[in-house]
């Protein structure tokens, strides 16, 4: 079968002080090819752990991940990752960063050259090919990271708060770019974010996770990503349904945060 299946994933690990943490409990999810899933949740709900398990950086205590039918056991080129801070290689220029994947696969430049240059054009970095990445602004670095991921032609793109460190304006532009690339390439994308708006704008499906233990709290299917492809994102935000869903989710996360704080107070931790 095509797509990503997350089956009964649980993650539990011991702390140095002897106690243990249940980071994820029985997370199950099916993601069809070409779907864009955004994941929201209060801090500590295991979003990043889940993403690292899907990427293959962590092995779950139980459950399994399957991509296109085969089991995921470690990181591989089929699952690309975009990090919060570009995680670019400073010792390479922009083009070498973007072509890293194909070059490591031993492909020749005539195979990947055109694609890499096209991607650089799409992300608006055509004139910066030869620049050192540390000379670029944060937004440009993030676009390099996006292009680098796409140049490797993964089946699934995992994004761990890729726009979290950007300023509001750059962020908005990048959101449009992500939507555009998603529609153009038809990749499966999992996007972790802290911003409810971003999750609503970009996610075709939206997952709200709850903490302690990390689990799926609620799932939404949203129309806004499809609307946003053709439209100005700011117009999408004015949609009455958008505002209603945003309030609902914000309230949900707010309640969870309250509950965590309340528990901390009861157990004696001074909540500040």
């Amino acid at each position, binding site marked *: 079968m095509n797509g990503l299946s997350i089956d009964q994933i649980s993650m539990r690990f011991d702390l140095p002080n002897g106690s243990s943490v249940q980071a994820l409990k029985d997370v199950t999810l099916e993601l069809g090819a070409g779907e864009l899933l955004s994941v929201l949740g209060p801090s500590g709900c295991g979003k990043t752990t889940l993403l690292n398990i899907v*990427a*293959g*950086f962590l092995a779950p205590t139980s459950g399994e991940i399957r991509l296109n039918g085969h089991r995921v056991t*470690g*990181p*591989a*080129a089929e*699952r*690309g*990752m975009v*990090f919060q*801070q570009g*995680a*670019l*290689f*400073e*010792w390479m220029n922009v083009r070498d960063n973007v072509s*890293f*994947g194909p070059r*490591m*696969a031993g492909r020749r430049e005539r195979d990947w050259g055109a694609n890499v240059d096209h991607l650089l054009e799409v992300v608006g970095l055509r004139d910066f090919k030869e620049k*050192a990445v*540390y000379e670029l602004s944060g937004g440009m670095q993030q676009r390099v*990271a996006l292009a*680098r*991921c796409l140049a*490797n032609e*993964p089946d699934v793109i*995992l994004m761990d708060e890729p726009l979290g460190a950007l300023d509001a304006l750059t962020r908005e532009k990048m959101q449009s770019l992500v939507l555009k690339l998603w529609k153009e390439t038809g990749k499966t994308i999992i996007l972790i974010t802290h911003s409810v708006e971003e999750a609503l704008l970009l996610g075709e499906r939206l997952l709200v996770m709850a903490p302690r233990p990390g689990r799926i709290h609620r799932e939404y299917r949203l129309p806004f990503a499809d609307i946003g492809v053709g439209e100005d994102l700011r117009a999408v935000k004015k949609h009455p349904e958008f505002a209603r869903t945003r309030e609902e989710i914000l309230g949900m996360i707010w309640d969870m945060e309250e509950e965590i704080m309340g528990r901390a107070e009861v157990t004696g931790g001074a909540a500040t």
Partner: protein
Amino acid sequence: MIVFLIYVAIFVGSFLLVKLLVHRTTGDFTARKTVTFGDESAVRPNRIASVVSVLTIFLLWGAFTGSNWVPGFLHAPGPFVGDATFTYTAEAEGVAPDDATVTIRVFPVGEEVDAPEVDPGEGWARNDSATVGAWRSGLVRVDQNDEHGRDEGHTVVAVNGEPIAPGGEVITEYGRVGMSPKGTLNFEPAKGWQMEPIWLPPPEAVMARLGEIAREGYRGSTLWEHLGWSLFRVIAGFFFGAMIGIPLGYAMGLSDWFRGWFDPIVEFMRPVPPLALIPLVIIWAGIGELGKIILLFLAALWIMAIAARSGVSGVSISKVHAAYSLGASKWQIMRHVIVPNSLPDIFTGARVAMGVCWGTVVAAELVAAEKGAGMMIMVASKFQLTDIVIMGIILIGVIGFGIDILMRLAEKALVPWKGRG
């Protein structure tokens, strides 16, 4: 003490003068900062101060050695040179006390002079003459030409009219006249404030010696051979140290077994100064080239291993994760992520290691060597050739500084991303 006070005075004086006369004319961003006290980035070296600082050192050096490079009016008072005189009063059995004059020709050390001719004068005590080198002292046996010698109870009771006794002294305008416990006079001409060349030669003497040794060599080898051997040992020792140390550091950064195995060794050897290993290395490998290169190898090894280890530890995990997600193999991650990411740390380590190696090679050559910068100054010091010692120290400093500059330039050219990740 006087030198120190003059130094402080020049420091403060030039500071005030420069602040008064020179107004900062740059209009860059830093010049517009109002808070500079506590803002380290706003503190840039004042180049005028640097120039004055270097000039001051040469000025003091020249002034207190009577250098030709420093105009005469700036010289510190030199030692007395010329003819010094004092009178003495002698007594002997059965005769009245009598006075006589002693004329002493004080000559710069290294010249040959004859004692001045003097008129014997009247009375039983005769006028004397003698020679004494500047900064030296000499016995003046005034009784030898007198008519009544020691066997007749000849004793000197006063110098320039001031009474003197065995063990005592009289300060004259030309210097100190002392009397030994047995009653013999000695004369020590005034030394002034200048340093004797045997302690500190003037700068031009050092320059002249540099020219001479550059032309004629020293101890059977040219100057370039001496310096070249020292450099060769440093480069050879550093090369082998880096060849072993860097892979060792990588292994320690990448494998828990290597880390556990070598941690105690590295952590133990790191604080042992290489100089402390010299005796052991000499016992094991002798005083030849092998011993020195082993010593420098050991000096560089731990520094390079630690630098490489911290370079590997400094790789941000997201870069490694990103590379894995892009399909890179372990070997490719090593080659394209870990190695380039650790280069800035390795360069820093290499700079430190080169500095330590250069210091260690000089020390090792001081102990035993046939050629080398350290050997040059060691042998020269045994013959009191202070000018060669100072020349050697300056050359060692200049070369060490040159090595560091070269390493910095290489760093800038090869790892431009340093500190930019």
